[in-house]
C-alpha cells in the first residue's frame, strides 16, 4: 500500500548508488550524532486514508461538532452566508489551489488577474483607490493599518473605539508589545463611541468600526473630525457586506479601510482561513503591507499582470519592510472575487438589505419577550445586542438543545470589563441575521428564546 512517495526500491538503490552512498541515513550523517533521533518519531505508524477518515469521523460526529448542525444566528465577523455550488467549484480548481505566490508572472496570469479583479472590488467597496492582495484576517489587517499610521505620522498612540471587535482589539494589544504602540481605548455610551472622553492629541490613528461590532451604525463624522484635529489617520474597520449599501470608508474620509472578507465565499470554517481586506489612499502606497498586483505588458506588448512595488516587501527590504507578511490568503481573495462576481452589483445590495431586514424583524420580535431588552437605542444594521433576564451562556446552551445557535455571549466574546457595554456583560448576547435565515427560522428563534429565558 502506498503513501504519496513515488520512490520504488529500484529508484532508491539507483539514486543512492549515484550518490555513492549505501543508505538513506548517510544523507544525514553530517548532523551531529548528539542531536540525531535514533528511534524515529514517537508517533503512531501511518494509516490509510479511509482509516484516517474514520478517526476524523469522530471529530465531526454529531457529538464532536453539534454546532455544525445548528441554525446559525452567530456573527461577529464570521457569517453564515450563501456560498453557491458554482463558487465552491471555481475556487477549488486545482490550478488556483496548488499554485504558490505568482513569482513567475508568465505562468501565473490566472492568479494575478484574479487578484487584480479582487483589488478592484475591494477598492470599490472601500471607496479607496489602493487595495492589496490580501492579509490574514481583519484583526491582523488592523495591526498592519496601525503600523501604516505609525509610519505615516511617526507617532505611537492609537486611539481605538471599543466598538471595534473585541478580538481585533486584543490582537492590536498583543502586537503593540512589539511595536510599542500606545493603545488608548475609547468606551461606548449607548453603543456609540464616546470620543469626547479621551485625549487624542498625538495620535497616529483614530480607529473606528462601521457598523461597530454591536451592529450600531455610528456617525463617522465625529471620528473623522477627531483625526483631522489631531493630524491622525482615520482607520475604519467595516463590515464589507454592509458596505454594499452604506457609505464607504472613503466617503467617510477614512485613510485606511480594513475588513473581514470571510462573508465573500468563505465558509464559517471555525474561524479560518479567513481574509483580511485592506485598502488605503494613494498617499500611503509606499507603506502598503503585503503584495499588490499591477497591470503592465509583456514583451509582445500584450496586457499582463505582475506583483509590483515589491521594494516595500520583506524579501527585498528585510528589516525595513512595511510588513513581514509573505504567505497571505490569496485563495480566499480569489474566492472573494468569484463570489462577488456571482453576487454582482445588485446581488450584494440584496444580500445586505436582506440581512438588515432579517435582523430588524428578529429584533422587534425578540423585544416582545418579557425581560429581553436592547442594549443600545441606536440604529443598527444586521447585528444587535440583547440583554436577557438570565445568564447569556446558559440561555445559549439551552437554545442549542433546540437546534439554534442563538448568538454569542458577550462575556465570552469580549470578556469582563470590556468597555463596549455599560454594566455587566453576563446577560448580553450578540445576535446576527444573514440572508440565509428564513422567517420560519426567526420565528422559531423567538420561540426558543422565549422558552429559554422563562
Amino acid at each position, binding site marked *: 500500500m502506498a503513501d*504519496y*512517495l513515488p520512490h520504488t526500491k529500484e529508484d532508491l538503490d539507483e539514486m543512492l548508488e549515484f*550518490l555513492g552512498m549505501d543508505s538513506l541515513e548517510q*544523507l544525514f550523517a*553530517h548532523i551531529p550524532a548528539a*542531536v540525531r533521533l535514533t528511534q*524515529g518519531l514517537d*508517533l*503512531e505508524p*501511518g494509516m490509510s486514508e479511509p482509516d484516517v*477518515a474514520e478517526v476524523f469521523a469522530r*471529530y465531526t460526529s454529531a457529538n464532536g461538532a453539534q454546532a455544525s448542525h445548528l441554525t446559525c444566528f*452567530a456573527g461577529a465577523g464570521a457569517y453564515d452566508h450563501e456560498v*453557491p455550488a458554482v463558487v465552491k*467549484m471555481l475556487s477549488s480548481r*486545482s490550478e*488556483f*489551489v*496548488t*499554485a504558490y*505566490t505568482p513569482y513567475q508572472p508568465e*505562468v501565473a496570469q490566472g*492568479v494575478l488577474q484574479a487578484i487584480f*479583479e479582487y483589488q478592484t472590488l475591494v477598492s*470599490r467597496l472601500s471607496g479607496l483607490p489602493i487595495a492589496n492582495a490580501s492579509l490574514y484576517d481583519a484583526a491582523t489587517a488592523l495591526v498592519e493599518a496601525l503600523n501604516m499610521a505609525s509610519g505615516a505620522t511617526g507617532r505611537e498612540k492609537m486611539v481605538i473605539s471599543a466598538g471595534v471587535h473585541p*478580538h481585533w482589539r486584543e490582537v492590536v494589544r498583543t502586537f503593540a508589545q*512589539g511595536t510599542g504602540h500606545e493603545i488608548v481605548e475609547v468606551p461606548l455610551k449607548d453603543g456609540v463611541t464616546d470620543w469626547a472622553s479621551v485625549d487624542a492629541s498625538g495620535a497616529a490613528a483614530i480607529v473606528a468600526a462601521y457598523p461597530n461590532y454591536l451592529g450600531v*451604525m455610528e456617525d463617522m463624522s465625529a471620528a473623522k473630525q477627531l483625526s483631522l484635529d489631531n493630524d491622525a489617520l482615520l482607520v475604519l474597520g467595516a463590515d464589507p457586506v454592509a458596505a454594499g449599501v*452604506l457609505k*464607504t470608508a472613503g466617503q467617510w474620509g477614512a485613510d485606511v479601510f480594513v475588513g473581514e472578507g470571510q462573508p465573500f465565499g468563505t465558509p*464559517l*470554517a*471555525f474561524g*479560518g482561513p479567513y481574509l483580511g481586506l485592506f485598502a488605503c489612499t494613494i498617499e500611503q502606497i509606499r507603506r502598503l503591507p503585503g*503584495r*499588490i498586483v*499591477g*497591470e*503592465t*505588458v*509583456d514583451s509582445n506588448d*500584450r496586457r499582463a499582470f505582475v506583483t*509590483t512595488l515589491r521594494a516595500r516587501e520583506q524579501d527585498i527590504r528585510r*528589516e525595513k519592510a512595511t510588513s*513581514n507578511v*509573505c504567505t*497571505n490568503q*490569496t*485563495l480566499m481573495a480569489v474566492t472573494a472575487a*468569484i463570489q462577488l462576481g456571482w453576487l454582482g*452589483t*445588485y446581488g*450584494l445590495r440584496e444580500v445586505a*438589505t*436582506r440581512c*438588515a*431586514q432579517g435582523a430588524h424583524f428578529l429584533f422587534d420580535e425578540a423585544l416582545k419577550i418579557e425581560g429581553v431588552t436592547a442594549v443600545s437605542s441606536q440604529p443598527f444594521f444586521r447585528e444587535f445586542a440583547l440583554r436577557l433576564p438570565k445568564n447569556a451562556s446558559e440561555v445559549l446552551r439551552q437554545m*442549542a438543545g433546540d437546534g439554534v445557535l442563538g448568538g454569542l455571549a458577550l462575556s*465570552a466574546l469580549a470578556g469582563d470589563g470590556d468597555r463596549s457595554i455599560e454594566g455587566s456583560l453576563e446577560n448580553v448576547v450578540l445576535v446576527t441575521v444573514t*440572508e440565509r435565515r428564513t422567517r420560519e427560522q426567526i420565528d422559531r428563534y423567538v420561540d426558543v428564546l422565549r422558552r429559554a429565558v422563562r
Partner: protein
Amino acid sequence: MRAQAQPGGRAASAPILGHEIEPTIFEMSVAGRSAYQLRTTNVPATPLAQLVPSAHLNDDVIALAEVSERDLVAHFTRLSHRQFSVDLGAYPLGSCTMKYNPKFCDAIAADPGLNSVHPGAPAELIQGWLELLVTLEEKLCLITGMSAATLQPAAGAAGELTGLLLMRAFHTANGDARTRVLIPDSAHGTNPASVTLGGYEVTTIPSNDRGLVDLEALKAALGPDVAGIMLTNPNTVGLFEEDITEIASAVHEAGGLLYYDGANLNAILGAVRPGDMGFDIVHMNLHKTFATPHGGGGPGAGPVAVSSRLADFLPGPKATRNEQGSFEWRTPARSIGRVHGWHGNAMVLARALAYIDVHGGDGLTRVAQYAVLNANWLKERLRATLPAAYDRVCMHECVLTATNLKSKYGIRGLDVAKALLEEGFHSPTVYFPLIVDEALMFEPTETESLQTLEALAQAIERIAERAVTDPESLHHAPQSTPVSRVDEARAARHLISTEDAAAR
C-alpha cells in the same frame, strides 16, 4: 448595431486555443445581467430606507460586475488555464516546499462537520474540533521536540512575530531588557522584518565560506543585550548548521533564546528535532511541511511550539484537555494575548493533522529522507551544468549558481528560470538567498520521482546548450506561455492596480 463582441463565452484566451488576453470581469460586465440566487425567506421586505438612517446610506450604487453564471464560470475557468500549479507539473521552487498535496486532505477540509462550525460556538458544542486541535498540538510538539504550542498564527511570518513576542515576554518577565536579535545573512526576509515588528534590532551574522553561520562572528556578536537568534536549520542554502549545539550553548550562555524558523522542517522530520538541537521557540509552516496546497499565495498556518519555560506565555485561548477528559478553551497564565481574530487557520490545521495521521512517524521520516535524497541527486546530476554554491551534502534543497553561464554567455539565472517554464517545469527560486550570486534554488520535494528529476535535469541541460548555441533566444524566453516576459519595471513606474486606475 449596439452589440459589442464581448467574449463571455469565447475561449480565445485559454491556452488550449490561443493566446489572446482574457478580459477582466469588468470588461465582461453588461448592465442588467446577474448570476446570484437567494433563498425565499418570507421575511418582511421593509425598505432599506426605513431601517437605515439616510445619513448612512450610500447614494451611489457600488458597481461590481454584472455577469451571468455562465460567463463567471468561463472567465475563471479560463483564468485557471493560464496558471501553472503543482497539479500540472513539478514546482521546484526553493524554500517553498511545493510538494504534491493529497486530495484526501482537501476532502477533510471540505467536510461540513468541520467547515460549518462557527468559531464562537460554545465549547460544549465543539468538542470534536477542540480535540482535533489538542491532538494536532501534541503531535506537532512530538515532531519538533517541544512542549506546548499555539496554533493561532496564520502563516510562517505570523509565527515568527509571535515567537519574537514570546521571546520578549520571557525576557520581560525576567526583568531583562534586551534589544538585539541575531540573524544570519542568509536568512529569509521575513525574519528581519519580524524582528523589527517584535521591537528588536537586527544584527546580521555573516556566513562563512561553507555556507554556514560564522561561529566566531556569532560569538562576537553575543552579549547581554541579545535577546536571541533566529535560525533555520537546514539554512536557506540548504545546508545543515553543523555547529548547532555549539551555537545553542553560546546563545543560551549569553542569556539569549534560540528561535527556529521551521520553513525547512521538511528536511529533518524524524531525523532531528529543533527541541533536541536546543531551540526554545519553533514555528512550522504547515503549508510547506504538512501539505496544505499553497492557494496561489496562501492560506497557510504557522503554529509556534515552545519549550516548557515559555509555555505560559503562549497566545490564548488554547484548546485544552481538562481534568475530566473533555475539552475547553484556556488562556495560559502569562499569555501575550491573541495573535489571530479567532483560532488560526483552522481548516489548514485540520488538513495538517490528516496529513500527519496518514503518514505516521514512519511516513514523515521517509518524507524527509526522500526530500533530501531528491535534492542531493539533482545537485549531483547537474554538477557539470549548474554547480552547487557549496559543494557538500545538502538537505532538502540545493542552491545552484548560474555564474558560469553568465560570465561565458551572458545568460543569467533569471534566463534559465524563464526558459525552464517553456520546458514544462516551474522555475526554481531565483536570486535567493542573497549571499549566492546568480542563485537558483531547487527544492524538488519528496513527491517528485527520479524519472521526473531526470527530465528536469535534461531540460536544464538543453537550456545550457541553448546558452551556447542561441543565447539570444534565452533572453526572450518564455514565448510559449500565456504571456511572454513581463515588463515589471513599467508596472511599478506606472501603477495600475485596479480596473479604475486603468485607462481602458
